[in-house]
């Protein structure tokens, strides 16, 4: 079976796809287990994927959606452009949003897979959100940066960091002089390098075993199969076109009314194509919320694929049936240097996904979703300071509690989504682990009753987290959203409750904070984070009454809200009052 372009049967296709997915999983396992910063080893904020020699996404098993649907392709192309002569053992560091990366905080290692004859076959990517990247302030989301200079990150547009498997120390020294807590960064870099080396070793072994010709023949066939599945998925959808909007709250550098993202979705079942038009959006703004090309493309695709049969592989084959229209130099679209894309993976990217999903929902029941809750509240701050227990500086992003899931057409929210682009892949920090590694105490972490987006299938409730420094002061950075424009429902589904954030003074008084803040929390004070749940899907009055009863019994929804919003009357003895419910729902 080493003959080039030999036709593989369905069994061989399934096997090879599984083996390539296994390589991604193996890379990811290495990153998780060996990473040094909490954002890697506690929150799992990283992705691993394989692109073909032609820079097309082949597989990104169990990755964060926002990291991979588009971006790996663009980054690989820039690697070829800047380094036309690739050699075995080369590794490139890439974090430039102007050349295909998601945002500067996502350091990516690209490793071309080159056989002993010097032929390049695939490129592997290990992409990981860093605890720090040398920004001008200790956060990896600089929401108010007017440009990349104020943002301050070191930008690496596919810069060679290893030659013949030897790390180029010049780059390491630069990073060590600029990135906070350099040993932590270097440990994470090693973890990424380990992942790349392991992936390369595995892929070389696979090519040697089955023949490179067969493997490339496989990719062609796998793309065709994926495209065929996508065609069938689109043809099973209703045809139509709809436009929806989603608005991010104002922060410094944005218009006072916030930033509204408009997404127009067209499903053409005859041509089996889905188009997303994002051109009707504002010009780039002097803030860090602009969305990189990779994240704009990816966000539109997430908005689509969240409604596509899950078993359709997400790769360049399926993407042939998607057409995107992007605005040059738009706030979402194709940003041009030196516009800042610091918070490009989350805030406005989520708004692209939410507007796209709500447009999908407008086209037909069974498509789209409510809006997924907003990022990034203070419970996911980047915190920094000096740990009084050992006198050492620290910097890291917390993932202390999130919900955000939205109601979907066939099921309630997956509660712990984090935010739309994350797909729920990140972990939630253990309170005990965070208290060991950071001089903080977490005094509260609980779901908020009656805060869910109601619907036939409901969104997640919001979550309140309260934390403060212990025996020291702590700097915290966050770029929250959802205080004015809370997550909306779809198809008559309700909105989730608003977000908020406060400083609690030693006497207990609450002081409201700006949504986009870089602040010091003093010893004795705490930071209170009220994060959004997600919007609901469908009319709450059509929700299965037993589900409402369960939510009430579990203390997520009050009896009053059950009656008012869902039209389900529940007695004090926790029984559904059938006649009263029928009457309430008939109104």
């Amino acid at each position, binding site marked *: 079976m080493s003959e080039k372009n030999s036709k593989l049967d369905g069994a061989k296709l399934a096997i090879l796809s599984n083996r390539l997915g296994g390589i991604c999983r193996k890379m990811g396992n290495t990153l998780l287990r*060996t990473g040094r910063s909490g954002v890697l080893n506690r929150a799992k904020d990283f992705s691993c994927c394989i692109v073909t020699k032609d820079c097309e996404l082949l597989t990104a098993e169990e990755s*964060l959606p926002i990291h991979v649907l588009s971006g790996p392709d663009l980054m690989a192309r820039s690697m070829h452009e800047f380094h036309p002569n690739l050699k075995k053992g080369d590794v490139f560091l890439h974090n430039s949003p102007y050349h295909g990366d998601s945002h500067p905080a996502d350091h990516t290692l690209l490793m071309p897979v080159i056989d002993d004859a010097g032929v390049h076959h695939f490129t592997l990517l290990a992409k990981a959100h860093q605890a720090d990247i040398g920004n001008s302030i200790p956060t990896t989301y600089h929401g108010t940066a007017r440009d990349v200079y104020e943002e301050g990150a070191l930008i690496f547009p596919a810069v060679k960091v290893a030659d013949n498997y030897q790390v180029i120390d010049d780059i390491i020294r630069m990073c060590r002089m600029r990135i906070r807590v350099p040993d932590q960064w270097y440990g994470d870099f090693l973890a990424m390098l380990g992942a790349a080396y392991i992936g390369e070793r595995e892929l070389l072994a696979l090519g040697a075993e089955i023949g490179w010709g067969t493997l490339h023949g496989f990719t062609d066939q796998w793309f065709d199969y994926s495209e065929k599945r996508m065609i069938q998925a689109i043809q099973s959808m209703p045809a139509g076109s709809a436009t929806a909007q989603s608005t991010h709250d104002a922060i410094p550098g944005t218009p006072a009314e916030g930033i509204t993202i408009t997404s127009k979705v067209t499903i053409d079942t005859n041509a089996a194509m889905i188009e997303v038009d994002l051109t009707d959006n504002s010009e780039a703004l002097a803030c860090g919320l602009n969305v990189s090309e990779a994240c704009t493309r990816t966000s539109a695709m997430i908005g689509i694929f969240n409604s596509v049969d899950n078993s359709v592989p997400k790769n360049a084959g399926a993407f042939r049936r998607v057409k995107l229209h992007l605005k040059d130099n738009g706030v979402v679209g194709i940003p041009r240097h030196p516009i800042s894309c610091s918070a490009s993976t989350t805030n406005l990217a989520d708004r692209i996904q939410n507007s796209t999903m709500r447009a999908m929902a407008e086209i037909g029941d069974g498509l789209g979703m409510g809006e997924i809750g907003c990022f990034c509240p203070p419970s996911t701050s980047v915190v920094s300071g000096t740990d009084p227990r050992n006198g050492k500086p620290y910097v890291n992003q917390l993932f202390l509690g999130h919900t955000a899931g939205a109601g979907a057409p066939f099921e309630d929210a997956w*509660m712990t989504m984090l935010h739309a682009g994350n797909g729920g892949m990140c972990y939630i920090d253990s309170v005990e682990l965070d208290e060991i590694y950071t001089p903080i105490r977490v005094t509260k972490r609980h779901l908020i009753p009656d805060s869910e987006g109601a619907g036939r299938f409901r969104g997640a409730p919001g979550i309140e987290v309260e934390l403060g420094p212990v025996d020291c002061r702590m700097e915290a950075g966050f770029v929250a959203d959802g205080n004015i424009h809370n997550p909306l429902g779809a198809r008559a589904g309700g909105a989730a409750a608003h977000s908020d954030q406060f400083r609690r003074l030693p006497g207990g008084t609450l002081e409201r904070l700006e949504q986009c803040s870089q602040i010091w929390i003093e010893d004795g004070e705490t930071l209170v984070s009220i994060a959004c749940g997600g919007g609901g899907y469908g009319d709450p009055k059509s929700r299965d009454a037993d589900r409402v009863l369960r939510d009430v019994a579990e203390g997520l929804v009050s009896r009053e809200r059950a009656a008012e919003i869902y039209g389900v009357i529940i007695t004090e003895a926790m029984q559904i009052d059938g006649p009263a419910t029928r009457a309430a729902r008939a109104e």
Partner: protein
Amino acid sequence: MRFACDTGGTFTDLIVEGDDGALALYKAPTTPDDPVLGVLDALALAARDRDMELSKFLSQGEMLIHGTTHAINAIITGNTAKTAFLTTQGHPDILVLREGGRIEPFNFRIPYPEPYIPRALTFEVPERMDGEGNVVLALDEAAVMDIIGALNAQKIEAVAVCFLWSIANPAHETRVGELLAQHMPEVPVSLSHILNPALREYRRASAVAIDASLKPLMERYLGSLTERLTAAGFQGRTLVLTSQGGMIDAMELASEPIHAINSGPSMAPIAGRYYASSECTEPNAIVADTGGTTYDVSLVRRGRIPKTRETWIGQPFRGHMTGFPSIDIKSVGAGGGSIARVDDGGILFVGPESAGAAPGPVCYGAGGTLPTLTDACLVLGYLDPDYFLGGTLALDTGAAEAVIQEQIAAPLGLELAAAAAAIVEVATENMVQAITEITVNQGIDPADAVLIGGGGAAGLNSVFIARRLGCPRVLIPETGAGLSAYGATISDLTTEFRSIYFTTSEDWDEAAANAVLAALEAKCQAFINGPGAGAAEHRIEFGVEARYASQVWEIEVPLAASRFQGAADLQKLIADFNAAHEEIFAINDPSSIVEFVGWTASVACKLTGSGGGRLAADGGAEHSGSRQIYFEGAGIVDTSIHAPAQLTPGEEISGPAIIETPFTTIVIDPGASFHLANAGSINITP
């Protein structure tokens, strides 16, 4: 005489070990409504085989070692006790939020898992410790009394208690335990610092929640087992297998029933370790236990069985983590009953859906209409339709051929035999991925490992799997069809003690580390003097869970001695850690500080034999001849059939060949060879 009895999903396997060391294997149907009955049925089969009354037969038994699925079944079917969860004030949603994470990020049809204990039965207790064990907020005992009132009013049947940092200072958990014992004496309680003293509050909380919820029913089950065995005439000791791969007295287990979750499956690697060390030269072993619906993989690394701290009940992120270390077993939905189908795009899938025991594969003729792996094996000639389970179940080859032709061969555009081979290949690949995943996680190279096959179906594709993984050897032990029960006959009375003590290579305090080890050793000694009294031998192994500074996932490194004596011992430990890190993750960082977190001492007391027993010959010598078998690449080949009783030990025979017993069929592909080993195993060079 000793009995080892493993209750599986379909069969209850019994191995009887005579005083002369000879073994006999029996299989009785499992009786899910009353599993003790299946145990007694299997014992009755053995008694009948010896023409003895059951009571007389049982009276000769010194020991019965039992593997049970009762605990896991109760969880899966939701038949556990009505359990309350007591948690630190401000943190009521530990069991709801869990640790986050998800699989299949584009799949919005999967419900978010319900918490193991509902929020409605969760109670926040005013109290708080910090990481150094200081009291941040004193325990409010009046509030605890109010909660106890509510628990009584709600007729709670079990209570799980997990407070933040109880591992740093257990005073509050202990006091709440006392109050519960005083005011709800009939209700069992699990405290997290006692059950599972480990970092990460969700893992401790989940452990106590599961443990407490199992206490009432496991107490009843294990009580009933011992009583009915005694009533039937058994006067020996009843021991039960644990997820950690050892055994403990039945009523001990009733007090910490979470350890029974993987009772049974954890025995396959114990058996595998014995066979690997006694019959193979490879340093490592991959132990694959095949069943009707699942394929369970475990490992032996240089004589040790690797464990995992992440044991899930159900799928990862969609089920519940036990929070507890157990023998690392990777289970996938790939077994004889796995269903094959071709999707709209023309891709073949096998499993995880299973036809189960009912209706079962199409060839059973019991109403199955979907093609399964067993049907494919029959079509290929791997299985003899007239000799399945020794001929007790006649298989319908025509029905299997028809269904594969229609549902698989036609849509794939393949010949019938090629389609059946493709089913086997895809199922095999699922098994290979399971093995790859666990070997990756544990850093074992299959090229250094023998593949040991257990369960009735192991022999069908083990050669294929070994070739795919590059394993140099396959071993199908004589007791393979009852591998778990066999493992039980050689398992030790074991327990493990853990202690959290944080230190680093930089701030190393040898005296403090030695004090931790001394305390652990004293606990082990008490165990040796207590339940372990009378053991032929015993041993204590020490280990430490270590990581590089600011990593959060530890790897376990064995300690060379029970105490540290000077700087050289620390340097050796650091070197061992660096080597282990590189072995597992391809990199290490010798310049980094190493952190030591969890200290363990496991004690094993040898109450059973040391292995080496042989199965009494079960006939089958007349089973021979040849049949037509399809091999991929070779087509249909006339293949000779062998019964182990006809083979000469040590004589190497080339494939293609089939070795068949009433309990199992082993396929030797062309190009492979095998011999009968002295110990009765089939030793294959793939």
